[in-house]
């Protein structure tokens, strides 16, 4: 490991009832072929690639269902032990956490004028008249942005990092 200490609160996803607590659970990711294809494209066109990693991405997913959870043992609010928690955002363990995060991400990228491909929902592209194209390859919480123009992609990356707390990977030498 990289020395970071890890512990997280997990919801009991197994107790969720289909139709009541969740509907859809499939969350799209890019397949490896696409990632390689994009890297080839960048190589052929001599594009600039930059990467980032979104911190605790799953916890940002907005829920469209009303979900309540028991207070975690040992961390209950004193004198209010009998109350339960109402979740506003997804939590690790929830069935729909992955999809909820993808939808939230998709929405925020739309604000940056990115659109996802219909055939590959982990590929986002930014196309505006008079400026270079930017392609985002996003695998849950790891992202690569590539573009022929370093200035354009850096500007967009800065906007993205303003929205989400990220770890900047610079010019990446590994992905996934």
């Amino acid at each position, binding site marked *: 490991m990289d020395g970071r200490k890890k512990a997280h609160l997990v919801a009991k996803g197994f107790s969720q009832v289909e139709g009541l607590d969740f509907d859809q659970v499939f969350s799209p990711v890019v397949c*490896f*072929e696409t990632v*390689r*294809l994009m890297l*080839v494209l960048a*190589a052929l066109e001599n594009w600039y690639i930059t990467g980032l990693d979104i911190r605790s991405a799953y916890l940002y997913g907005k829920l469209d269902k009303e979900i309540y959870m028991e207070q975690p043992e040992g961390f209950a609010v004193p004198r209010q032990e009998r109350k339960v928690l109402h979740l506003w955002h997804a939590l690790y363990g929830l069935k729909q956490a992955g999809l909820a995060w993808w939808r939230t991400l998709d929405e925020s990228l739309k604000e940056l004028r990115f659109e996802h491909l219909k055939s590959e929902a982990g590929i986002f592209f930014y196309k505006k008249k008079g400026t270079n194209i930017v392609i985002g390859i996003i695998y849950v919480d790891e992202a690569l942005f590539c573009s022929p123009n370093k200035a354009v992609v850096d500007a967009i990356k800065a906007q993205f990092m303003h929205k989400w707390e990220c770890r900047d990977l610079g010019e990446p030498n590994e992905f996934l």
Partner: protein
Amino acid sequence: MYLQKVVEHCGMLNAKSTSTPLPAGYYAAKNTEPVDADLRSCFQTVIGCLLYLMLGTRPDITFAVTHLLCHAMNPSQDDLNKALYICHYLIGMSTYSLIYNGGSGAGLIACTDSDWGSDPTSHLSQTGFYLKLADGLISWTSHVQKTIAY
């Protein structure tokens, strides 16, 4: 690096390398012994790591990994040894990588091949293909055919 972690996990940091993913002409025989849960769990861990490497950046071990994967339900000690054999191979080949040469301007090249009933027990054939772009592989598989070829 992921490969390094895998090798470390298998406790073979200073192991010697082999020059092929599997011994020449090797065919894994089906294990008829009852399932050994510890062995199975160990085998599945190793082969799972190898599978991830294969899908990501190692087309050279595709056949070896998919071949051993057929025994993931009930592996023998020999299967585990062969999975570690692949690790040995990867140690020697760890500096090999996929390189996309944008300057080559090379277009799409596809290759496919198959043998004919090579499996001595089921007589099924093995098929594989790869796609190459900019002088580097972008897609590959190796799998047993679903029907017996005459």
